[in-house]
């Protein structure tokens, strides 16, 4: 049991680390604003698939790491991530039964919420102005989800992450 627990965590950690690297990888200026939320998507996937492994606590810690990496006020991404995972975890059984396209649409909506929360908190703490390109990642993420979901499922089944 202990061994199983360890190996599952190991594979989840690897996927999260890859997502973290992808979230801070430099992108050309033209497509920078469209960067998908890799980390949020990976965490949402694990929450849907294995809610007893990845839940609000994990989401908070991972969001906190993103805060450090991006140099934002500590806790902003952590809170937004926890909120999104709270919504996901409350509905994980419904989400599992949706088709990938329906899931993608919902994930897009969740990520709109995620970005709005980050914007609101930033607005409250640092003076910033709203611009529509803050929400672009939600659209790209929804599109990427259609590809990411089968990939993550394959990964989970291949390595028997439970």
């Amino acid at each position: 049991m202990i061994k199983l627990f360890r190996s599952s965590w190991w594979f989840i950690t690897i996927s999260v680390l890859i997502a973290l690297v992808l979230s801070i990888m430099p992108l050309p200026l033209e497509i920078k604003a469209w960067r998908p939320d890799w980390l949020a998507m990976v965490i949402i996937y694990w929450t849907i698939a294995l809610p007893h492994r990845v839940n609000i606590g994990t989401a908070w810690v991972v969001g906190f790491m993103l805060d450090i990496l991006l140099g934002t006020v500590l806790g902003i991404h952590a809170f937004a991530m926890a909120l999104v995972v709270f919504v996901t975890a409350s509905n994980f059984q419904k989400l599992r039964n949706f088709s990938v396209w329906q899931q993608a649409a919902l994930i897009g909506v969740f990520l709109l919420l995620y970005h709005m929360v980050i914007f609101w908190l930033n607005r409250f703490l640092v003076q910033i102005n709203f611009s529509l390109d803050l929400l672009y990642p939600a659209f790209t993420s929804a599109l990427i989800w259609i590809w990411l979901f089968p990939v993550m499922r394959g990964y989970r089944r291949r390595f028997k992450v439970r």
Partner: protein
Amino acid sequence: MNPIFGAGPSLPLRFFFAFVISVITITTDVYTDSSKQIRTYLNTLVAPIQYLASLPQDAFDAMAKYAASKQSLLDENEALRKLQLLQNQKLQKYDMLKAENDKLRALLTTNPRAESTKEVAEVMAVASNPFTQSVVVDKGSSNQAFEGQPVLDDLGVVGQVVSVGNTTSRILLLTDQTHALPIRVLRNDVRGILQGTGNINRMELLNLPHGTDVKVGDRLVTSGLGEVFPEGYPVADVIEVQPDVTKPFMRVIAKPVAQVDRIKHILLLWDEGQREEMK
């Protein structure tokens, strides 16, 4: 199927915990100074991820260097040689002027200007959040980098260090909207405060009364009054003056001298002897 929420607290309770902890970390980070030390540890902790993320770009750069043709290298070498010659000639004059300046200052019984120590750091290829203008560089507290340290490039002021890790540190660029620095106009010593706007090419002079002698093309240099930046380094050039008398103050827009949007190498600055003290 696993008994998913059989063990542990319920979902709303977990979320409530996450909310409370977030409020605590956000308030600690924004309203107290205690997070500086914590951030140093945390930055050190995530540094491997940053190095990993910058790997592809580094590899690409290395490949580009390797693939450069012999002729282009020779041309570059030639151009650099010429540049060095010109700069050495300027430096000779500088040495002479510095000696003269020190003598004159001695006559006025003021202290000679302190020399500063510099070290080159490389900007790491990692993205930052879109709300602030900051970059991560590959020098940290193990290289005696410290918070509030002035940062320059070969043309002018770039910004200052805001958080330090063991091997990395984050630099807030002077065009960030939370950054302001005291300047003076090189031509006539008019003093002012220059604030970033969040736009890479625009900075604004704050609270300048109407009729102040500032013209388009004026060079703004650090005044040394804020005790972060040493005196006399170029900061920005005035590109726009709007003397609109219906507004309480004059609107003066300046463009940073440093190439803030394409920096690759920067200089970290220490006062004379400061670095040795920190070792």
